């Protein structure tokens, strides 16, 4: 062998790092411009449809009550939430979205923990996979609307020492209930992903089951885990909003949507502000998961990144 410095394939020199960051920033601002252009286009279309509706019959109602002007929506943000109150609609929506986010993130964390635990158990014991997986799948076929009052009903009777069950726990529980499923299925696939050679290698090192999990199965499950986390996060947001509505928990964006929808004749733009709040909530949680994704896949080659 001559010298190892003779490269058989190009190895990227470490010096390109800073220019890589610059490139990413540039790409970032370009995609931001595209996103803004997209929003602008939607606003234009909205107003165009409304304008056309005055002259051509449309298959749906384009009146100011069902489709308020974009500027009405914006100005609705600054109006007081109820007559004479100090808080504006915008402030009320932000605080409701924030509250829902806490519940969604709480549910997400619980769901991820439970999902991972189930996946580990199912991977470790074949009988557990055979026995548990049908229940895991069946759990998702129960309609949420039927489940919510049940959970609230059972939950309200739970009292562990000084801890009293509150309805917000029920909301978190429902969010977790929706979030654990995609995660446990994705994690199970990921834990089963290592190649036969990798497994034999670890066996040849006399690795314990715990080492096998930590040093091989968990790291190789990451490419499967990341998309599962994204689906779970979305499920926990939807779960929170639906659970807030069906359990009647106040203070969150779900309940607010219902309340504002009732005021549609007097303040038609208000409900749209709440809808934007729900969208912002979803985007924020998605951003959190993307940050998690970047962190988890920092050591993986690009083609493995989800």
């Amino acid at each position, binding site marked *: 062998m001559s010298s*190892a410095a003779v490269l058989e*394939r190009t190895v990227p020199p470490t010096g390109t790092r800073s220019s890589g960051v610059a490139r990413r920033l540039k790409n970032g601002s370009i995609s931001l411009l595209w996103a803004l252009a997209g929003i602008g286009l939607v606003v234009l279309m909205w107003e165009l449809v409304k304008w056309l509706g005055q002259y051509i019959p449309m298959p749906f109602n384009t009146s100011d009550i069902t489709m308020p002007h974009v500027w009405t929506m914006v100005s609705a943000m600054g109006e007081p939430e109820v007559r004479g109150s100090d808080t504006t609609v915008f402030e009320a929506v932000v605080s409701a979205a924030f509250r829902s986010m806490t519940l969604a993130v709480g549910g997400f964390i619980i769901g991820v923990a439970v999902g991972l635990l189930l996946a580990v158990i199912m991977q470790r014991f074949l009988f557990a996979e055979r026995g548990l997986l049908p229940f895991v799948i069946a759990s998702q076929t129960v309609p949420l609307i039927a489940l919510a009052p049940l959970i609230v009903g059972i939950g309200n009777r739970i009292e562990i020492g000084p801890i009293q069950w509150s309805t917000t726990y029920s909301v978190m529980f429902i969010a977790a209930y929706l979030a654990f499923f995609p995660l446990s299925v994705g994690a199970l696939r990921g834990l089963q992903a290592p*190649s036969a050679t990798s497994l*034999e290698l*670890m*066996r040849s090192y006399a690795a314990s089951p715990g080492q096998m999990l930590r040093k091989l199965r968990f*790291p190789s499950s990451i490419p499967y885990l990341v998309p599962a986390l994204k689906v779970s996060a979305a499920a926990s947001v939807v779960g929170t909003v639906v659970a807030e509505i069906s359990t009647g928990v106040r203070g969150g964006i779900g309940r607010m949507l219902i309340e504002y929808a009732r005021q549609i004749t007097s303040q038609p733009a208000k409900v749209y502000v709440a809808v934007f709040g729900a969208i912002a909530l979803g985007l924020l949680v998605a951003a959190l998961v993307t940050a998690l994704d970047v962190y988890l896949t920092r050591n993986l080659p690009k083609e493995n990144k989800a």
Partner: protein
Amino acid sequence: MSGHEHAVSADGVWKIFNEGLSNEVTALQDVHLTVDTGEFISLIGPSGCGKSTLLRVIADLTDATRGQMRVAGVTPPEAREKQLYGMAFQQAALFDWRNVRRNVELPLELQGWNKDKRKERAMELLEMVQLADFAEHRPWELSGGMQQRVAIARSLAVDPPLLLMDEPFGALDEMTRERMQNELLRIRQETGKSIVFVTHSIPEAVYLSDRVVVMSPRPGRITDVVPIPLGVDRDEDTRESDAFYESVTAVREALRGHVGGAGMRARVGEV
């Protein structure tokens, strides 16, 4: 080790898959083999001759159906627990999420070595396979040959007396392959390891080995053991020497003597 023990000794080893069922396969039939300490042995033969199975029985990746296998005087499970062998496969099987150095550290980490000692040992080994400059690179940034050298360094990490290699150069191109063979001979000289090496290639087996074990399929068994009298110092000139060609011919004839008809049957059976 007390010296008189063999690196590996197989005494009447059988491996039968699905014994007693209609799809029963005798992968190893009555294998007797001893590998002396410091000896380089190649297992060669067509697909299905049981050479990989024999290696896997030595490594305790599968157990013998009958017979007795000893690795450095103990049973294969004990040898595995005590890390008395290191293993290299056709796929380098490096972990993408670890850099090159931390891949070499893996077996040491599993043995509970502390961080500094681990790093020192890994760098020493990367030095040996001439990849110290690539310690902090990611595996996927290296060529196939470089990856395989990392895998060899990793198999040497715990300094086991025995190396088990399952077609480690099988996926490499011919030029890289010959360089890797020289590399392996040099490492062997430096470390004095006993090596059991599985290969499909006659010249490779001859160039590397003290003895070539010829195997035949259905049932998998040892049909010949060809000693290779090429001495200890081998280099590129060895590949062109008459003695080399004679040994290649001897191994080829040993293979042909037993493979011919059985090989044809095997091919029909595999369809």
